[in-house]
Every structure is written in structure tokens, then in C-alpha cells.
């Protein structure tokens, strides 16, 4: 049992650090949840791809480096410590790509992944519906068989970044006669600019169009864009659901970087007599370190053949609550300036704390609410009996 990086891993870390130091924009990009910011972040993805940093764990033929999970953790630590821009390609890289690696055809992988790595195609997730949130299997949007493909009909919502994204992936009811709600679903990819798609942006809590609803009116999807077998969509989706909840969506590097900045803010602004605030800063540091070490243990387990399984639910609850606590503490440290939004010219640190706080508030909701995660923890990790939700 050790915590020492081997020389090659250390070299990888140094290479990451050096590249970021000479490429990360000096001024933060405009918010990723605006049209202008989205375009700027897309440009940044292209630059990352140029250095082969956009998807380090992918095989080289698709634009990656074939990096180990440990190196991915190191990359993320360096990335966020360098204050590099948020990842507009996140949904594609951390959610769709693992699904394609597990269930896609060679043709799909070769066609979809390289433009994703270049930032040329940005992906949105189309899962939730007005009547299907935590109870995802209640979804009603349908895929109807047609010549050479499927016609999508229905209403998807809370689709992150769909206001500006190029394509989406989601689950649709293709076999309406199936005996159980999560049977007879199909996992499909479709174009957000296709005829029949209407995208209506929805403002998040701070008004930025961070997500959208999608109206689908006989949108044609060719057979080539079905992932896995038609009717097997639930199994396809759930086999990689841990990716969304666990490590890959919000890596420890985000939190170690934010906790470091919080400690710096505390050193710069704190009243030493205010031990209540000090304790909250200390707890943020403890939480970030705990997540970092837990991830080191997790990648060791995965490397030796383990699976993330329901452990991803523990991780998701932990990081989402840590994120809120950390940002709330920063805003409290900032005092009267804490309420300045990122649009305010005098907002501290370009409003990153206020923006981070709004973003963090969504964490316990998306990717499966924390209530659902706690059910999963209790039933699958502790073995408690199923009951009514």
C-alpha cells in the first residue's frame, strides 16, 4: 500500500502541467452556458485535442493517449489546478463514449468518437421527460419503426447544454407492448438540427440557458444510430450509468483545486478569531482529500478487475454535497461581495465562486437525485429490502 507515483506517472503529470501552463487562457472564458461562451469552449476543446488532452484514456486511434485511470486522475488534478476551462464535451466524453466502447459497433466508434474528441460534435443527453425523472423507466417518448430506421416522437426535457449542442443521445420506447416499464426501450443518437426537432432553451436558477427541452416530431434516425440491440436500451444505459454518477463526471481534481483556492481565500480574508468559518474550510479540505484518496483506492480496485457498481452512488452523493458546502463557505468568506454574480464587474475572482455555487446546487439533482442514490446505497451496498419509494 503506497501513495507514490512511479517515474512514468510522474512524467505524465509534469507533461500535463507544462502543456497547461502554456495553453490555459489567462482570462477565464465567458460562461459555458451562453452562446458566446459555448463557442469559446468548443474552440478550447479543439486546442485540447491538438495536444491530445481532450480524452486521455481513449485509445490513440480516436485521439486519446491510452492513459490509465490513475493518469486520468492526475490529468484532472492538474487540469483544474491550472484553472483550465470547464469541459463543454463532458456529456459526450464521460457518458456516451463509455457506452459506445461497451456496446457500439466498430463503425459507430470510428464515426462518432473522433469528432467528439475534436470538439466538432458536442453531445447532449436526452433522458428525462416531463413525466419521467427519478422514475426514468416511465418515459413515453417513442421510437417507431420505419424504413431503414426509426421515427422519434415525444418530449424530452432538462437536457443539459442542448440549447447549443449538435447531437443528442437518449432512451425511447420502441416496443410498447413490453411486459415491464424498463423493457422495450431503445438507445439512439440523433441530430439536434434534424427536421422535426424543436429546441427550447430553459434558464437555470441564474437565468443562463444551461439546459433545454426537446420536442420531437417524427425525427428520422437511421439504424446506424441505434446503440446496442433495439429493445435493450435500458440494459445498455444502465451498464454505464456508474460513469455518470461516479468518478468520471466530477473527478476529485475539481474538488482538490477548489479546496486549495478556498484555503487561499481563507488565508487572504479570514478573521482568525472566526473558528466557525475556519472549521468549514478545514472540512472542505478534508472532504477533497478524502475523495482524492478514495479515488486512488478506487482506480487500484478497478485496475485489478473490480467494478464501480453501486459504489458510484456513494461517490455521487459525496461530491455533490461537498461541492455545495465548499462554495457556500467561499461565499460566506467573501461577505458582502459574495452575492455579486459573474456578470458584476466587481465580482471577486470573475464571479467564479457565485457561478460555482449555482452550478453546485444542481449536483444533488442531476445524474439521479441523491434520494435515489441513497436508495441504491441502502439496497445494493447494505442489502436492505426494497420498499415503496
Amino acid at each position, binding site marked *: *500500500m*503506497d*501513495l*507514490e*507515483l*512511479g517515474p512514468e*506517472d510522474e512524467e505524465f503529470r509534469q507533461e500535463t502541467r507544462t502543456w497547461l501552463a502554456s495553453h490555459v487562457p489567462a482570462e477565464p472564458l465567458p460562461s459555458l452556458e451562453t452562446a458566446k461562451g459555448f463557442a469559446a469552449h468548443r474552440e478550447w476543446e479543439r486546442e485540447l485535442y491538438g495536444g491530445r488532452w481532450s480524452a486521455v484514456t481513449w485509445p490513440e486511434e480516436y485521439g486519446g493517449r491510452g492513459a490509465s485511470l*490513475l493518469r486520468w486522475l492526475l490529468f484532472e488534478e492538474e487540469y483544474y*489546478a491550472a484553472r483550465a476551462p470547464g469541459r463543454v464535451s463532458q456529456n459526450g466524453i464521460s457518458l456516451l463514449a463509455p457506452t459506445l466502447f461497451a456496446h457500439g459497433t466498430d463503425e459507430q466508434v470510428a464515426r462518432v468518437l473522433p469528432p467528439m474528441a475534436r470538439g466538432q460534435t458536442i453531445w447532449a443527453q436526452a433522458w428525462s421527460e416531463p413525466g419521467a425523472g427519478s422514475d426514468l423507466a416511465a418515459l413515453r417518448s417513442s421510437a417507431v419503426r420505419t424504413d431503414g430506421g426509426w421515427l422519434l416522437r415525444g418530449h424530452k426535457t432538462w437536457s443539459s447544454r442542448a440549447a447549443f449542442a449538435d447531437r443528442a443521445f437518449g432512451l425511447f420506447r420502441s416496443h410498447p407492448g413490453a411486459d415491464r416499464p424498463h423493457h422495450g426501450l431503445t438507445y439512439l443518437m440523433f441530430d439536434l438540427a434534424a427536421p422535426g426537432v424543436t429546441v427550447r432553451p430553459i434558464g437555470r436558477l441564474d437565468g443562463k440557458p444551461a439546459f433545454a427541452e426537446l420536442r420531437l416530431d417524427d425525427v428520422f434516425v437511421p439504424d446506424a444510430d441505434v446503440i446496442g440491440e433495439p429493445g435493450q436500451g435500458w440494459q445498455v444505459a444502465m451498464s454505464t450509468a456508474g460513469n455518470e454518477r461516479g468518478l468520471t463526471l466530477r473527478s476529485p481534481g475539481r474538488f*482538490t*483545486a477548489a*479546496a*486549495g*483556492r478556498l*484555503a*487561499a481565500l*481563507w*488565508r487572504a480574508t*479570514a478573521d*482568525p478569531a472566526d*473558528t466557525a468559518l*475556519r*472549521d468549514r*474550510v*478545514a*472540512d472542505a*479540505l*478534508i*472532504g*477533497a*482529500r*478524502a*475523495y482524492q*484518496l*478514495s479515488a*486512488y*483506492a478506487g482506480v*487500484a*480496485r478497478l485496475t*485489478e478487475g473490480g467494478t464501480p457498481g453501486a*459504489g458510484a452512488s*456513494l461517490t455521487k*452523493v*459525496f461530491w455533490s454535497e461537498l461541492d455545495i458546502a465548499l462554495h457556500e463557505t467561499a461565499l460566506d468568506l467573501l461577505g458582502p461581495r459574495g452575492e455579486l454574480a459573474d456578470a458584476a464587474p466587481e465580482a471577486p475572482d470573475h464571479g467564479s465562486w457565485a457561478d460555482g455555487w449555482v452550478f453546485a446546487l444542481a449536483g444533488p439533482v442531476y445524474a439521479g437525485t441523491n*434520494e435515489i*442514490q*441513497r*436508495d441504491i*446505497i*441502502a*439496497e445494493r*451496498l*447494505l*442489502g*436492505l*429490502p*426494497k*420498499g*415503496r*419509494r
Partner: protein
Amino acid sequence: MRFLLDAEQAEFGRTLGRMLAAADTPAAVRAWGAGDSGPGRAAWRRLAGAGVFGLAVPEKHEGAGLLPIELVVSFVELGRHAVPGPLAETVAAAVLLDRLGDADGLADTWLPAIAAGDAMVSYADLSRGPYALDAATADVTLLVDGDTLRASGGNGPVQPSVDPVRRLTRCAAGAVLASGPAVRAAAAQAADTARLLTAAQALGVGRRLLDDTVAYVKQRTQFGVAIGSFQAVKHRLADVLLALELAEPLVYGAAVELAGASQAGVAGSADATGVGIAMAKVAAGEAAYTAARAALQLHGALGYTDELDLSLWIRKARALRGAWGTPAECRARILPGPASAGAQIFHE
């Protein structure tokens, strides 16, 4: 990097766990609390036989070398089985005597006896509080006061703890055994080690409380169903598991750092090691206490009884939360002050 116990370390923990499960530690705990240390002493000797105390003693004094990771593995099991006695204190005394060197033959006298299980040592650092744990039972009591190390000159009356197995006493100052700045430095290392092992014990206490409570809510029925099927019950236990699962890597991470610092022969606990230990203590102490509260609540009135052995762990969780470093003290170690050049934990 491979941040996982190796097969031998994991097997060592399982072996100790099996041994302690067979030793009826709840009965030993109740006897110990009533002043009969016989069964507790027997458990102590078995632990020594399994090599636990030798993990705190260097090879030249007939131990296995200071092995913090294996010590943490052991102390998780000691907590899980609520083993009585001055466990962290005996290890801390061993660290202190080893760091002091062979002056006046103290190390030569006591370290082999500690390794063999023949010396149960109570140890108090008076800068932290006036009480020595189990001094009335221990074979020797060592007291550090600033830069002076003394033997106890006699015990005051037992001051019962909320955890009845923890028998606290004040001790009169006895003969000076050593003095000077080396004592202070060695005592700081001893206190860090005791803090880490108390965190490990707390982790084991929390695991036990969770296991027993999960078993209970699966079989206890109300309204015609197992109470473990209710969401309010599930979520509370999910939070306990979450706290324990995230405290555990902090405890092992601090052990790895301490092992590195010991091997490198770093004089004085490296600042970063002390910070890591403080983090582990806060997280494990809070996790165990969260587990205790949930265990009591979910057992209902039964959980409030002395009769149920669960009470042994519920009360221990409270005592360990403060022992060798309160949450506030540990957080202050992590962030000593805005102006302090204290260790930067992450890039700032």
C-alpha cells in the same frame, strides 16, 4: 501507486477479527468496567501473540519495526470488537521511548516487554489533559509534562468516563525519567501516533455499529414489514456508510504518510503527516459518532439500554471522538492560522 492493502495486510486484519470475535470481548469489556481486568488481560496477551504490539517496537527491541499501516489494520479490528485497555497509549509510549533512544535504559527495559504483551502502559501527555487511561490497571504509567518525562507517583480515584470501560485517573508526579527538548519532540510524535490509532479504532467502532444496525433493521418488523424497507431508515444508514467509506481512505492515507516519514527517519512528525492524521481523526471520529447516533435511533428504546451490547460501542464512539484530539483541535492543526505558513494541502 497502489493505494490498497496488500493481501497479507488484509489477511492479518481478518485473522485478528476472527480471533477477537471468538474472544467474547463484550464480556471482557463489562468485567473491565467493573474493575476485573482478567478477561481483558487475556485478550491483550492473545493480541501480543498475534504480533500487534510488536508493530510498535523496532526490531532491535524484539518488535517488527514501527509499522503504521499494520497498526491501523489492527486498531480497526480493536475498535470493531471494543477491546478494552490503554491500547493507543501503549503504542504511543513505545513510540516515545523509541524516539528518546536508550537513555537510562528505558527503551531496553520497556520496549521488549511491550512487544511481548507483558507491559500494559498507560500514558498521558499532560498538555492535553490531566487524565491517564487505565492507570490503575496498567503495569506502568508514563507522564509527559512539557519537556519532562516522569513515572506516575500514584493514582487518584477512578473518574468514570461516558464509556465505562475507559477508567481515567489523575496521577501524582513521580520520578523524572528524562527531560529536555527531545522529550517534547518525541511526545509530539507519540501523540500523532495515538491520534491516528484512535481514528482507526473509531473507524472500527463505526463499522460495527453499522453492521449491527443493518442486521437489526432487516429483522425488526413494524407495520407488517421490515423497518429497513422504509426510506427514512435507509437514507440514515446510507449516510453512515458514506461517512465511513470516505473516512477510511483518510485513515489509511495518513498511515502511509506516517510509514514514509518513519522510514525516512524524519525528525519530528513532518507537518504534512500531522495534517493528514488530523484529517483522519476528524473524519473517523465524526463518522463513528454519526454511526452511534443512527444505531441508537434505529434500535429505538432497545438502543437506549445498557443491557444490549450495542451500548458498548455507542458510548465508545463518543469517548473516542475527543480522545487524542477533539474535532476543533484537529481542524486547527489543518489550518493553524491565516498568517501561518502551515502546510499547503492542495495547490493554492
